[in-house]
């Protein structure tokens, strides 16, 4: 599978290396949901820098992933959306809400840090 999943502290980092098939997207979703509980993960960063296309299926899967993981106590941030991909997403009105987005890995991690050290602790 062309997704590397790394653990970094309390976070899981899923780095997508190429465009994914629908099956691989679902597989990623299930894998992440499973690993959440095992390692007491508080945040997930999905890096889509290498993806040239995010179609409606991928967008919907990422959304449902975010909702699922939130139920299991972890926030999800998508990082590395390329300018072309961003334009395509808004043109096709593919809504990623309530997904959070950040520019790159650093930014995504900073975002998660803010949540998990702030309000996230009590509410989680």
């Amino acid at each position, binding site marked *: 599978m062309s997704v590397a999943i790394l653990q970094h502290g309390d976070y899981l980092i899923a780095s997508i290396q190429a465009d994914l098939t629908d099956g691989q997207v679902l597989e990623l979703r299930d894998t992440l949901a499973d690993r959440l509980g095992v390692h007491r993960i508080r945040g997930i960063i999905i890096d889509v820098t290498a993806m040239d296309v995010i179609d409606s299926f991928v967008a919907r899967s990422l959304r449902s992933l975010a909702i699922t993981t939130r139920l299991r106590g972890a926030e999800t941030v998508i*990082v590395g*959306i*390329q*300018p072309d*991909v*961003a*334009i395509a*997403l*808004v*043109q096709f009105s593919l809504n*990623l809400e309530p997904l959070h*987005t*950040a*520019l*790159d890995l650093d*930014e*995504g991690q900073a975002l998660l840090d803010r949540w998990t050290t702030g309000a996230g602790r009590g509410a989680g």
Partner: protein
Amino acid sequence: MDRPADAPVLVRRPSGGDASLLRELVAYLRDSRTELREEWVRRITEAHLLSVMTPDEIFSEVTAVYDNYVDALETGSVETLQAYARDLSERIIPRGVETHEVLGIVLLLRDVLARSLFVRYQSDADMLNRILDAYEPAANRIAVTVGVSFVEERERVIRVQEEAIRELSTPVLQVRERLLILPIIGSLDSARARQLTEQLLGAIKANRARVVVIDITGVATIDLTVANHLVQTVEASRLMGASAIITGMSSRIAHTLTDLGVDLSMMRTVGDLQGGLEEAERLLGYQADRSDAGRSASGD
């Protein structure tokens, strides 16, 4: 002009004599080059055409055009004249020579030459008729060629300038670390809005921006398509991890957007650029402090 009753047929199509007539015409025009040229310059000055050029310049251009004109009459090919006209246009357009001046000058030459033909052949109406038959189509074609060349050159210049304006008109500026400003000035159409979005997203990536302030103080009006583009720009910026703040929206645009029912729930708007920058700094965690005394407690 009154014609005697026994004048020959008024309009007579020249059959085979066309070429020899043109030759005669060209020879005549070459012989009378000096007088006709001077007459032409006199008429140009009288009509106050080419006022931006000095008399010397006018005379040398006039000479070149005259010779090209006669050559074009002789060969029937306007290519050399066309090239010259284009080259001339390139030189005179930056100096502010107008289309009506160029057309006026060419038509003046046509009149000057036609009149000299009247004078020369006034005793022989039939010959005059045939000479004019040969002269007029060629002269008209030349006038059209010069006019079109000028206008084409002008359009080319406009296209180049449009391109330059498009490049210049949407700078993305970094004012602080992670904070960009995009001042939009002038009219927005779909093409420009799209280009602007791409430029902004590229800058967000390159500068790792977290907040962008889009200032539309300089935009007079907006339509539905462009408004939706603006919403998409804000949305796409968010996908790249940057919050967008729109500032300087005129009451007219605000009315338009409200009337059009554009969904602005995603948009963060602040009245003016200053307010937008303050809001952006707040988002980024900056706090502006005045070092001198007497500062008012205005922080929020």
